[in-house]
């Protein structure tokens, strides 16, 4: 990783205003004696980790069935194998379309997804038992529907890897993506409540029996938009204004883009009454501007105006007031208004450090325990220790995305990968923070785990994009004898960019090793040697 001192020095001497800080350390500090290790594709490790994830998932399923006194049959093994097969297919797609992609991201997502599926199944069992006890018809199993969504998500995952051969092509559709993203974000607000409102939050589009949350897709489209917008208009954000308290503040007239984002975020908060989506959208904007400009003043300004806006929304919007009241005192009205939050807290308290054991708790007591409150369900049954492991898995995915941003050569790729990493991190923060009472609870789905199709599908698209960028970042230049299959038709923006940059030597290089790097990861013409 980048050593902070070196990075900041580089940022000051050669970077200065207008230069993306992340751009330089990648070339400079990365030179290590073990350069050759990057050449291995590490796909084997990915497969190994995926198999490990399948073992854990199957084990979890067996535990649930045993604790719920269900029959232990071979079917469980088949389910585990089916899960492995599904992800093996995704793995094969990665092998074929992005052979140098990061080996950790997909297995982490797979494990989170597997444990989520087990938990959804476990809550299905509890619901069915409840319904039987009351003589009601047994509700449909959510787990099966979730597996269908998972299949769809993985199909889209493969399609994205297959169709998007070079992440830079996405930069061309930046404004289109931004427009579509905004429409998706705003659509539920203008639709009639019958079509868009579930449990008070107007963030749905429900047609027929299927509901999707367009905001989940909007977050990816908007990340693409901001990445391309910031690449094109970075100067706008780096013009220096006043220096106050050691921070360089932007000139007031340069605040317009941030204010527009703020208006959108406030619109979402007021018209869709959903703090989660609003916070996520604005968080993505802020983090990406910060990544692009290295100015903490933007974050400060953003947080201040968001806080002010949220305070205003709290003053005027009833639903927000209810949520905030439940946040400030979760036990104030445990019978009705704060029932969900307080039950979630009780659930986690019951779990304690080690949890009650999978299938041995009562997570179904919490309303929406398989969607928004799946963290409390996991917290109850696997305890703090299990929950921390899950959060670490999210952390891993997110840091790998940021790592990719450091390594990739082109600015758009950097911003895209960093933005997607932040998207995931912010979403987890909003969900986890909501259920543990750190921030007002909002109805967001935990990525990969919660029951809910839009979130699952959108997050697999997100993972596919990150893998695409990381493939470009880790692909060795000498591998061009095996170009990405079918990649030829994606031309660089100008033929000029086809020339190749090679590093022959640089001060401080270990042993003057000859290293070679194409200009911002440009595919160079075929060479004689194949690496595989």
């Amino acid at each position, binding site marked *: 990783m980048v050593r902070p001192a070196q990075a900041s020095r580089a940022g000051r001497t*050669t970077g*200065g205003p207008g*230069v993306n800080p992340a751009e*330089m350390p*990648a070339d400079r500090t*990365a030179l*290590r004696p*073990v*350069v*050759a*290790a*990057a*050449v291995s594709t590490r796909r084997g*490790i990915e497969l190994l*980790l995926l198999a*490990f*994830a399948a*073992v854990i998932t199957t084990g979890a399923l067996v*535990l649930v069935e*045993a*604790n719920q*006194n269900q029959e232990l049959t071979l079917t469980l093994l088949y389910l585990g194998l089916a899960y492995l097969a599904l992800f093996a297919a995704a793995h094969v797609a990665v092998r074929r379309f992005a052979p140098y992609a990061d080996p*950790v991201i997909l*297995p982490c997502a797979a494990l989170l997804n597997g444990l989520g599926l087990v938990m959804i199944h476990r809550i299905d069992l509890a619901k069915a038992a409840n319904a039987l006890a009351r003589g009601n018809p047994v509700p449909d199993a959510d787990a099966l529907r979730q597996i269908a969504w998972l299949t769809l998500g993985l199909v889209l995952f493969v399609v994205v890897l297959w169709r998007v051969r070079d992440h830079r092509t996405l930069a061309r559709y930046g404004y289109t993506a931004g427009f579509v993203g905004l429409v998706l974000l705003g659509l539920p607000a203008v639709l009639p409540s019958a079509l868009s409102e579930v449990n008070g939050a107007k963030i749905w589009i429900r047609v027929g029996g299927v509901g999707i949350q367009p905001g989940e897709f909007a977050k990816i489209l908007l990340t693409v938009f901001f990445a391309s917008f910031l690449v094109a208009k970075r100067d706008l954000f780096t013009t220096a204004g006043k220096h106050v308290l050691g921070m360089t503040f932007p000139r007031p007239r340069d605040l317009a883009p941030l204010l527009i984002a703020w208006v959108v975020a406030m619109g979402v908060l007021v018209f869709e009454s959903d703090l989660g989506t609003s916070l996520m959208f604005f968080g993505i904007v802020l983090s990406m501007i910060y990544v692009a400009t290295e100015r903490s003043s933007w974050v400060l300004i953003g947080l201040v105006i968001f806080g002010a806006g949220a305070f205003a929304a709290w003053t005027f919007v009833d639903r927000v007031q209810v949520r905030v009241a439940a946040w400030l005192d979760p036990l104030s009205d445990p019978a009705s208004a704060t029932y969900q939050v307080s039950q979630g807290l009780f659930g986690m308290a019951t779990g304690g450090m*080690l*949890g009650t*054991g*999978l299938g041995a708790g009562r997570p179904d007591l919490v309303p929406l325990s398989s969607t928004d409150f799946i963290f409390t369900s996991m917290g109850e049954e*696997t305890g703090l*220790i299990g929950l921390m*492991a899950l959060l670490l*898995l999210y952390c*891993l995915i997110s840091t790998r995305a940021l790592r990719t941003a*450091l*390594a990739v050569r082109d600015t758009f790729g950097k911003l895209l990968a960093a933005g997607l990493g932040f998207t995931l991190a912010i979403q987890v923060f909003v969900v986890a923070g909501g259920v543990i009472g750190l921030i007002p609870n909002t109805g967001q789905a935990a990525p990969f785990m919660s029951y809910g199709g839009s979130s699952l599908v959108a997050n697999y698209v997100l993972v596919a994009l990150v893998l695409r960028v990381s493939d470009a970042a880790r*692909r*060795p*230049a*000498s591998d061009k004898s095996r170009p990405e299959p079918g990649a030829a038709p994606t031309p660089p923006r*100008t*033929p*000029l*960019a086809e*020339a*190749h*940059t*090679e590093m*022959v030597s*640089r001060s401080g*290089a270990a042993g003057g090793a000859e*290293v*070679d*790097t*194409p*200009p*911002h990861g440009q595919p160079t*013409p075929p*060479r*004689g*040697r194949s690496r595989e």
Partner: protein
Amino acid sequence: MPELVLQLTRAAFLALLWLFVFAALRVVRSDLYAASGLRAAVPGRRPSKGGAAKPGRGGGRSGPKALIVTAGALAGTRIALDGRPIMLGRADDSTLVLDDDYASTRHARISQSGDDWYVEDLGSTNGTYLDRNKVSGPTKVPPGTPIRIGKTVIELRT
């Protein structure tokens, strides 16, 4: 399920979960010391792309073969010349993307005409210098003569 078995499986499951986390972290750790932005190269494979050069010129026998950055943030960078023009600037699609405060988005172009290479300023703010003279029109670049753009110095080498 008996209580003892429940307790054991519960602990075993958590151990397994953390084992996965550590396995993933191990992969990440091995990656930390590997290259990030840099790619390993196979030494001595440069001649193999002779086919890309224009055949009539005999692989640039008489003219310069490479452009080398001798000073500035990108010092040590080398670009093989194969007849195509080289774009210099901060723009992402430049052949050589300059991380230089004094460089413009599209700063200069170095292109070939006959056996000679010419440098041409593309209306940059801070100008392009060949040796010590400011470049106004297309100017012939003899091999070994420094071209200065901000703090970056570039030379053509035979």
